[in-house]
């Protein structure tokens, strides 16, 4: 089984880098990018199956990036990262095509579970 290709887009560099490193330790082919623009730019190059996307970034909003990703390839599953205590923003993202959302600070086991579900969904499709 080939490793899962995953892209993390979050402006919090330390967070994105560490999460990326931890996922890599678990055999996931993860890459981290630190702005919406960068993330979209590298999309073709690495062709991820899963994108973990922060909802709030300075250059463009997570929802806009989500729309761009879905335009580029509707099969890419996106898991939204939300800093809000509110589920509302996450649900809104799901309505716009995100696979799921997870609140910061992220529980890695929970995230891995969601990644697996997303991968399952892709393989069924």
């Amino acid at each position, binding site marked *: 089984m080939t490793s899962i290709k995953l892209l993390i887009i979050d402006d919090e560099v330390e*967070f994105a880098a*560490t999460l990326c*490193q*931890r996922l890599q330790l678990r055999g996931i082919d993860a890459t981290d990018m630190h702005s919406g623009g960068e993330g979209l730019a590298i999309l073709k190059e690495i062709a991820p199956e899963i994108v973990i996307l922060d909802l709030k970034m300075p250059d463009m909003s997570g929802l806009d990036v989500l729309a761009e990703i879905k335009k580029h390839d509707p099969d890419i599953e996106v898991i939204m990262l939300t*800093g809000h*205590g*509110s589920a*509302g923003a996450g649900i809104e993202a799901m309505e716009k095509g995100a696979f799921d959302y997870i609140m910061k*600070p992220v529980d890695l086991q929970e995230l891995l579970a969601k990644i697996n579900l997303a991968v399952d969904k892709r393989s069924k499709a």
Partner: protein
Amino acid sequence: MKEHSSWLTKILPAPSDNIISGADLDRGYKNFSRGLFVILTVLVLVPLTIITLLSHQQYKQLLQQKELDQLFLNLEQAQSTIEEFVAELQSVIKFVARDDHYLELLNPKELQDLFVRLQSEYPGFVDIEVIDSEGMQKAYFGPYQLEGHKYTDQTWYREVMLRGVYISNVFSGFRNVPHFVIAVSRKHPQQKASWVLRVTIDGQTLQNYVDTVSTTYADDIFLVDQSFTAQTRPQKYGKIGEKSVLYDVRDTEKKNFRKRVVERYMMVQKASDMMIVKKSFQGRQILQGVSDLTNAPWKLVMVKEQYLYADAWFAFKMRLTTIFLSCTIVSLFVIVEIGKAITNHLRESDMKREQFLVEAEQPNKLASIGRLAAGVAHEINNPLAIINQKTGLVQDFLEMSDDFAYKGAMGEALNGIQNSVERCKKITHRLLGFARHADVVNEEVDINVIVREVVDFLAKEASYNQIKITFALDPDISKIYSDRGQLLQIFLNITNNAIDAIGRNGEIVLSSRQLDEKNVQVSIADNGPGMSAQVQQHIFDPFFTTKETGKGTGLGLSITYGLVKKFGGKIIVISEVGKGTTFEITLPITKSSQE
């Protein structure tokens, strides 16, 4: 209120300014009440006093004017009466001394007959004499031996020769009784010289005239000569033949009247002076009227003690004083009552305002603290996520590495960090939940079901702690329109607090009842330790907690408060130290009242 000019603020300080304590506030109201009393009293009493003084003054002037007028009138009447008497005497003597009588009168027998006839009409006539143009007495009849007198150089003789009539002052002379003289000069028909008929009249005659005119109105009336020597007997103010005692008394006020009179017999118009002066004599105010007689060398003096000390003036003063005092008393009473009413009104509205401010402050406090909390929570959340991930990474490395000296201890330390992160996460999530405006679902809910559900959540924890939970639910209570989840949160928060407050061994009673047609009420009562008034004041404040550090966020009750308010309800706490605490939550039934 602040626009008051400074003097008004000084008299009428706003009671709620510069309050430090309740005692200051009380003093503030007292000062306000006092200021109000002063202003109202001045406003009422000043015009009242002015009116009273004015009417006092006005009536006094009126009385004085009336008094003067009356004295003037009396004096005028008395004057004309006496003038008539004198004129009558003059005309009798003029008649006797007709031009052609001179020779007849020289005859002693004729003179005696005439005099006896005159005396029968005028008993005051004392003697009669005829004097020729040289001033020599030619004939005399009377009780004294005065024949052969020579009057040539005497003033009265020269005067009568010039003027035709002479009236003397009252004097004693060689007759030794008070008397006066009327002399008339006539032209001799043959010789071209004049002769004089002189009649001496008893002073008592004059006294009789004065007695005739004296009225009860005047206190004294008498005649004086030009130098103010009394010609008749004054009753109080001097002696006959002496200067009147009033002569030396200083005038305090003087009034002159010029009177034009027509002397009836002479048909000549003459002006007569009349003067009324006020004097202060032996402590009494007196009015002295003096009038010149037109046909005699005398002045008529009329004295009147001042009216002002009479009954009318006293009665008026009494009445005025009574009216003034009763008006003052009534207005003071009314002012005190009005002042009390206004101050009480002010106190009440201040209290209402205070209460309103306290009520209005709570949601406001919640809103601003909520915004602050959300901001802080959001900012903290990101570094928290980083700590979380970094720790996770270190844990990953630790797991992958071989055993080393402190591997176990390091693992525990990392777990401790993760636990703390977890705690922080809960806090930030609650803070953010506190701040957000979640949409309210509006569904029909049975409040009894919700209360039972709350207890299902907590039953285990309660039973661990030997806490008995009982229900007193009204089975016929109306269903309400509200958000099920948030209602659960409300009751859960309070019941949870009750369990924490009791600690071990106790009872919680959850009851519901229909408050009225529009409201239901749920009350949650515990028999825990209760709360002091101090604590009760702050229980709905965010971050206020009595639980030990780490156990409570201090947000539970403020979230509860916010939710109840959002539903249009009311939450109150009744608590007493040592007896327990009861929360009463009133919620509206209708849909509309929540929107």
